């Protein structure tokens, strides 16, 4: 089989699925929020969001015009063949999706300000690699909106403040972000590792379904506590007021240096777009989060 061709097709399909069809867990959470929201203005926003999701599916159009920065997460079995062809194939997939779905060209050279026109450029689409056992390759795409990216924060907590310091860091970040990240949001929170490691795992935590909580009951409780707390802010849908500010909170961590307590909060907008597929050694493809469009 031609691995490059298969991966290009898979990359195209998951990109298309991600930008048009929101994952079920996100849709369910939005429906639940709409039913529970008490602010009249907040309700108008959730209604518009739900109507929009339906229209996007009906017309097979991107759910949001900001089709984001394109990030692939590749879990590559060390025994899989042609791993060297994957990055090029994902670049081709991105170019094709930009033209055919279509996606908004969102890759700009920071020096010249020039838009490449096809969502590719130095380090874009971004590919995160993880090596695993076996001979299959699992590819997830996240298309990350600019509004929610602009409020992501990384910082250093005084180690003596511990988890309380983290809680304050998160609450302050949500309040400062306000209306900008298109609430209701999903928060990926991480601590430890280092400045880069905490942000990397915070962002990766955004890939978890909202129905999944941290397996460690103490961390799951912290997720719930932060969820309840930030929903007390009153920011509400689109920052127009209400009790739905976040749809979910995911926390992950790495061990830390005794003198450092890195912390990171990654925001995702309500249009939390992701899709995953697995390519087996014989070239068979299984779409794990979405149905393949006919």
């Amino acid at each position, binding site marked *: 089989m031609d691995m490059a061709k298969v991966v290009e097709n898979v990359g195209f399909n998951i990109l298309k699925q991600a930008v048009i069809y929101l994952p079920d867990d996100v849709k369910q959470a939005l429906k639940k929020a709409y039913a529970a929201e008490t602010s009249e203005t907040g309700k108008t926003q959730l209604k518009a969001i739900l109507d929009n999701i339906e*229209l996007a599916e009906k017309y097979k159009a991107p759910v949001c015009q*900001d089709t984001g920065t394109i990030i692939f997460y590749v879990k590559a079995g060390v025994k899989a063949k042609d791993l060297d062809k994957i990055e090029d194939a994902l670049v081709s997939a991105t170019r094709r999706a930009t033209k055919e779905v279509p996606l908004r060209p969102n890759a700009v050279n920071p020096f010249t300000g020039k838009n490449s026109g096809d969502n590719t450029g130095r380090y874009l689409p971004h590919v995160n690699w993880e090596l695993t056992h076996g001979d299959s390759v699992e590819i997830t795409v996240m298309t990350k909106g600019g509004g929610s990216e602009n409020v992501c924060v990384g910082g250093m907590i005084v180690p003596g403040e511990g988890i309380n310091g983290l809680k304050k860091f998160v609450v302050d970040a949500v309040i400062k972000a306000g209306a900008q990240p298109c609430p209701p949001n999903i928060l990926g929170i991480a601590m430890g590792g280092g400045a880069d490691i905490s942000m990397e795992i915070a962002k990766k935590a955004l890939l978890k379904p909202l129905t999944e909580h941290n397996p460690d009951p103490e961390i799951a409780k912290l997720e719930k506590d932060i969820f309840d707390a930030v929903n007390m802010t009153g*920011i509400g849908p689109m920052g127009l007021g209400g009790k739905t500010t976040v749809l979910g909170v995911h926390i992950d961590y790495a061990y830390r240096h005794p003198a450092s307590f890195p912390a990171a909060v990654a925001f995702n907008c309500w249009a939390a777009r992701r899709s995953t597929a697995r390519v087996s050694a014989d070239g068979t493809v299984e779409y794990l989060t979405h149905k393949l469009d006919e």
Partner: protein
Amino acid sequence: MTVYKLKTPITEEQVRKLKVNDVLYVTGTMATARDQAHRRALEYFKQGKPIPVNLEGLAVFHCGPVVAKQGEKWIAVAAGPTTSTRMDIFEDEFIKDFKVRVVIGKGGMGKRTTDAMAKFGAVYGAFTGGAAVLAAKAIKNVKSVEWFDLGMPEAMWVFEVEEFGPLVVAIDSHGNNLFTDVQKNVEESKQKIYQKLGILF
């Protein structure tokens, strides 16, 4: 919360009736403008050069749409709002120079814009962030694209729209700003939240 349906060109008198929290639908002509188009329009005005569209009484939309070309015709595929705060540095002059009556975006705008809206008679209509297909379906015709050299998102797209909305009036022409009100309440809730989380410092 009153629902208003207005057709462009919108008059100062019409716009002055709108109050914060009202819901507005706009029919007629609107032009998109983000950072680059705002900057260029203001530069042109200073130099006495006309901009491609007379915006008097129209709506300006903070939006970088996804558009596709079908034959010779542009079609709006997805066209939700972008974050308006980036345009805060331009909007007061923009309202004064071009006499737009409705500014559409997401996330709200600051004091400079609020003051200009009170002075010259304009409102800010918040469109739901990300609701891009809902917006695109209200765009009945892409009339033209100007300043395409700025790139697809930053160009000025001129749309004919029908009942474009719902827009929540978040800044009215009387100095009220819903986003500022919400922010004030949020700041006040902070201590209560810290307490709930057991944060002692």
